[in-house]
């Protein structure tokens, strides 16, 4: 293997800390892998504290406490304090289920900087149906009010797919009503459980186009009142997204059992060697782990990416998606209309199925 030039490996900005795969909800669009990690294999709080220390030294600025449902960990307070104490900006990425007013107040006091609450729809019955949890909507709403009452910034995250895409406007209105400073309209990406449910989630091209137009209008209307971040539905795009800002450039993901991944779906690519925080220091993993170096830079690219003027703009798209759809993780993401396999994506984008969701369960 070629030696790594440490001067060209950038320092990461963000750490996605998947504290657990336990979660009370069963959202069919979940990007966790189908093989969920067992509770008994989870890293303990002391190990997370060490990981956060190492992350901070490596240059990580933000930690995203996530999962599964991070609030399912009884030691969430200890974990959050550890992240805060080494200077990391702490984002809690939560369904809202499992957090009480008291617990949230403790987290705020311990240095939590921001809370993101997911919503599954603007209509309670539909929202609870998508989440596979009766009463979820009401609890999320109540928790959102607590977040604002504690003077913490609130983001509302809405994963969008065929069942709720007609209510993007209403979901933005809900975010405004809840006094969120940001709303993420996240068109579903097909990894993990979302991949297994793809045909049940896929919006029609007409729905996607209407959504795109509407989001532009909403941005104009609400400018200065709320930030609307939208993740494009890339099966309907011409060019791929620069997935995670480029492989192993900006962020890293630590799973509940301590595996370190360049992105949350990377384990879906067969043949990659991942390292674990139990065996290596985080800096060593970032710089030297085979999985991290597999698609760093541009040397791994094939045509049409290798000679494409956009190669350092979108880095050829998503490796996991290229692997899932073509069998070759080094191929162009077939979302790109220049990919020879683009027809695969174009065809899949029209496949819809109205069968019951395969709910995400342990």
């Amino acid at each position, binding site marked *: 293997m070629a030696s790594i030039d440490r001067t060209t490996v950038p*320092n990461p900005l963000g750490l996605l800390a998947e504290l657990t795969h336990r979660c009370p909800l069963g959202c069919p669009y979940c990007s966790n892998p189908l093989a969920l990690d067992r509770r008994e294999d989870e890293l303990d709080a002391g190990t997370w504290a060490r990981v956060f220390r190492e992350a901070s030294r490596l240059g990580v600025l933000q930690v995203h406490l996530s999962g599964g449902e991070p609030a399912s960990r009884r030691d969430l307070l200890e974990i959050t304090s550890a992240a805060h104490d080494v200077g990391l900006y702490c984002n809690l990425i939560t369904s809202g289920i499992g957090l009480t007013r008291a617990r949230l107040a403790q987290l705020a006091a311990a240095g939590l900087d921001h809370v993101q609450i997911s919503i599954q729809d603007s209509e309670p019955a539909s929202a609870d149906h998508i989440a596979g949890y009766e009463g979820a909507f009401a609890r999320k709403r109540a928790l959102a009010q607590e977040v604002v009452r504690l003077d913490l*910034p609130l983001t509302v995250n809405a994963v969008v797919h065929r069942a709720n895409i007609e209510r993007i406007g209403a979901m933005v209105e809900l975010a405004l009503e809840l006094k969120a400073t940001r709303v993420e309209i996240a068109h579903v990406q097909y990894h993990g459980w979302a991949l297994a449910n793809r045909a049940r989630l896929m919006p029609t091209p007409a729905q996607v186009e209407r959504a795109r137009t509407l989001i532009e209008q909403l941005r104009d209307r609400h400018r200065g009142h709320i930030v609307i971040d939208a993740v494009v539905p890339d099966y309907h795009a011409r060019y791929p997204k620069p997935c995670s800002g480029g492989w192993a450039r900006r962020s890293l993901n630590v799973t509940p059992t301590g595996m370190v991944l360049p992105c949350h779906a990377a384990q879906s690519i067969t043949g990659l060697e991942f390292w674990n925080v139990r065996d290596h220091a985080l800096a060593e993993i970032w710089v030297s782990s085979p999985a991290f170096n597999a698609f760093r830079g541009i040397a791994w690219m094939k045509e049409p990416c290798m000679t494409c003027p956009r190669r350092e703009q979108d880095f050829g798209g998503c490796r996991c998606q290229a692997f899932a759809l073509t069998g070759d993780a080094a191929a162009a993401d077939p979302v790109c209309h220049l990919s020879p396999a683009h027809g695969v994506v174009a065809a899949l984008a029209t496949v819809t199925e109205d069968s019951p969701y395969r709910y995400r369960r342990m």
Partner: protein
Amino acid sequence: MADEPKAVIDLATHPHLARGVRLVHSEPHGGWVLLAPERVFKADAIAVEVIKRCTGQASLGEIVDDLARTYSAPRERIVADVTALLAGLAEKKLLDL
């Protein structure tokens, strides 16, 4: 764009970073960065000097005066540049006016 109206901010307002937004120095990332909910923004030297003064204690007018003194620059130019910067930050919900 040439046709966009220039932002105007009342000089009596007391700008301050929004809740959950912090300006920190990061050596691994080569300078000052603005940390916000799930976002990181690089801050150039000028932006840093402006943002540091947005404590909620000083009015925009006072901030402009201070910058004009410190950098011996024409006041009108500073008003225009600072207003543009702060309007951009406010639109991103990073700053409260």
